């Protein structure tokens, strides 16, 4: 059912406290499926555990831990986001029309995050996967250091430059890069592997989705296919098994 776009479906948060703001949002979402938040100033936990079928549009700057435990809902931010978006999110989609702060997708275990521009440090830290739970982060700009730190599963696609200490402690999942990392940025537990056909298909799907999310907003040089990409994977199933053994 297409929801009507009336004034009732718009909440202005201003500088109200996050507890009050989240209560109002939850109340409203009992009645409607699509809700627009305006004048958002750093309220934490927005869209926390938002379920399937619910859609939140955020104007302003949402606070830390936005989309924590997201459970199938969709959150679109028309601006930039702060730290720890998608903390332990389970399912659903987060779209950021701007940049985001540190530790995006912290311990994420399902769903997708699309970031139009740069992200802070430690995006994808502790990401994990299990069977059909395959989390994805797509970053259109540059990433801060420690991208994919302790990554145990899922997919990160980065269009800009990776920072230092790339994939430190990564032992599962895959990172697709367009720009080659500097030699010192990679630890010995990580290898650059050739793209397989299934990687190309996946990259092209994600690029298509990225372009669709940010149509008309992004730089012209978004690649159309997977040709330029590299793939980072852990060197073995237990790359750090002997780290403390000798």
């Amino acid at each position: 059912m297409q929801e009507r776009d009336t004034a009732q479906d718009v909440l202005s948060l201003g500088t109200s406290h996050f507890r009050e703001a989240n209560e109002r949002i939850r109340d409203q979402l009992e009645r409607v499926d699509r809700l627009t938040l305006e004048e958002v100033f750093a309220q934490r936990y927005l869209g926390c555990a938002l379920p399937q079928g619910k859609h939140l549009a955020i104007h302003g700057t949402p606070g830390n831990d936005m989309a924590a435990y997201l459970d199938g809902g969709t959150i679109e931010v028309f601006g930039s986001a702060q730290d720890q978006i998608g903390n332990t999110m389970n399912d659903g989609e987060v779209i950021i029309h701007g940049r985001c702060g540190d530790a995006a997708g912290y311990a994420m275990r399902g769903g997708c995050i699309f970031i139009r521009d740069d992200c802070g440090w430690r995006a994808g830290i502790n990401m994990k996967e299990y069977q059909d739970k395959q989390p994805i982060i797509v970053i259109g700009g540059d990433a801060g250091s420690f991208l994919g730190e302790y990554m145990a599963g899922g997919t990160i696609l980065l269009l800009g430059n990776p920072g230092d200490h790339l994939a430190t402690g990564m032992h599962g999942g895959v990172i697709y890069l367009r720009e080659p990392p500097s030699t010192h940025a990679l630890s010995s537990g990580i290898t650059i592997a050739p793209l397989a056909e299934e990687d190309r298909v996946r990259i092209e799907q994600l690029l298509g989705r990225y372009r669709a999310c940010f149509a008309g907003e992004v730089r012209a040089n978004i690649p159309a296919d997977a040709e330029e990409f590299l793939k980072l994977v852990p060197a073995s199933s237990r790359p750090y098994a002997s780290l403390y053994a000798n």
Partner: protein
Amino acid sequence: MFFREDRPREGVVRIPSGCAIAGIMDRSGGRHDGTDILRSIALMHDRGNGLGGGFAAYGIYPEYKELYAFHIMYECQEARAQTEAYLDTYFMSEKQERIPTQDVASIKNPPDIWRYFAAPHPMRLNMSGFDEAEYTMQHVFHINSHIDGAFVASSGKDMGAFKGVGYPEDIGAFYRIEDYQAWAWTAHGRFPTNTPGWWGGAHPFTLLNWSVVHNGEISSYDANRRYVEQFGYRCNLQTDTEVITYLFDLLTRRHGFSQQMAAHIMTAPSWDEIDRMDAPCAAFETALRSVYASALVNGPFSVILGSEEGLLAINDRLKLRALMVAEHDRMVYLASEQAAIEVVCPEAASIRSIEGGVPFVVQLDEVVAREQGASGENIQLEAPLAHEIGVLPPRRKEVDHVRS
């Protein structure tokens, strides 16, 4: 007991926790009141827990800019009598008054807070063999260590710290910071890590013209403390933050480094990075890390340092804390969260994060102009320093011995 030598050191009592920090500066030196900094720090209310809040303000006492402005907290009448007698001996006070405050329901049992505009006693200063700053610092340490119930909250010129136990917005209302005009403000909302909250332990932590607001915790505290104690700094205020203030004072005022270089020493590049540098750079960095090994600060932190030159912001090398910066016209804004900048300056463009281990520096235009005009060479002194020549000619013990 407000302050005692036998208080537990930092680390003895541990309370786990984060904090909020913010800074606003007008590069042109134009002054603005405390309204914006109050709104900025208040937005980050939940990063603190009401056990500490405070503000540092630069340029607030232009009519007394040549004098040290001591902000002193007293827990009892005797502490004030004792401190004022001490100040009367070593300083010449031009004005003293209670700092105006306003009752705020949530601020409980505030100390009696006074300010003194004073110059060092000229004869005693001369006899001490110290320069003015060192002389003042020694006396600040004396009051903090030896006068029970007295605590010097700030001791700089044309600046002051306003701090206490409470949420920063309440502390700001208590001190009526909207009544002060400053070209730079910093603010702190505290969530005490490891140590109890008390009025003296609130941030900003200050010494002379330095002020530090800090979000994080310093794992290298004991190594840093042992190092600065060798140079006469006393770390017994139950907060790891004080050691950052002393390191900046030691490295810049006493060892002559720029603030950027001091920040660089405290967040030195890793040995891996040094190995990848070309030979001259690697040699330089190796020398710095070797000489100043104990000035390396480890642990998660973001810090805003205030001084008479401007503001400096720094994150730890691994960037375990967030700190954002934005500029608009002649204004510079810093805050732990992006929204805390936008709430006071919606038109701020180019909001970006401060990277780990890379200091962000903003200086007053007049300081920038002065430094551009300065020679790159070391300045040669035309006359010997006062303490290098005395009333009596230098004598050697062995000569005396021969004569007798």
